């Protein structure tokens, strides 16, 4: 099955594109997708501990089962302390 992966900010810069279509075995979980992309883009590993993920535009846990056509997004991490926005 195919899923879409949307990439933003630091993830987009590592992957080099803002959207990927990834082929996965039927019944794969979000976790399996993450591992597959990590082996393809090793620099993602440094981010993974602090990444969040969404499936179909809702935050999702790593054990979420994916379906064909799902839209997954990597939500890049916080960096740099507690009050990291300007305001």
């Amino acid at each position: 099955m195919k899923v879409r992966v949307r990439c933003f900010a630091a993830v987009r810069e590592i992957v080099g594109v803002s959207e990927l279509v990834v082929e996965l075995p039927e019944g794969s979980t979000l976790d399996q997708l993450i591992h597959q992309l990590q082996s393809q883009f090793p620099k993602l590993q440094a981010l993974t501990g602090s990444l969040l993920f969404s499936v179909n535009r809702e935050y999702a846990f790593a054990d979420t089962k994916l379906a064909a056509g799902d839209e997954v997004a990597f939500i890049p991490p916080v960096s740099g302390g507690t009050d990291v926005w300007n305001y």
Partner: protein
Amino acid sequence: MFGITDQPLLLEPLVTTVKRSSSGAVATFLGVVREQTRGRQVRHLEYEAYPEMAIPKMREIADEIRRKWEVDEIAIVHRIGRLQIGEASVAIAVSAPHRREALAACAYAIDRLKEIVPIWKKEVWTDGEEWVRPGIPQPR
């Protein structure tokens, strides 16, 4: 009214959008690009959004507000693209019959926006750059 825009943010249209004949108060919040952040000199910022998720999340914040306070209307607009010092990155307006609800809801909206709305900024300093994103939402 919920939006992502690459144009400068203005408060007046937001106020007009949220005001009802029942409104006795309108509270607004602007997030502005500061010159300094954590001791480093900012040259400019670049904001990026996941708009298809960000707008529903803004709507979700408005729903949360309506469950907590008696308000009339809520508007949240975030700017994306390159922003200079002094420019507003986010504008929030909340109208309510009374001032306390308008002010409390406005403060809540900006806190929750930082927590759950997928928008990032790259800080470009005089000596480097870094992507920054606030808050760790709890997946549900």
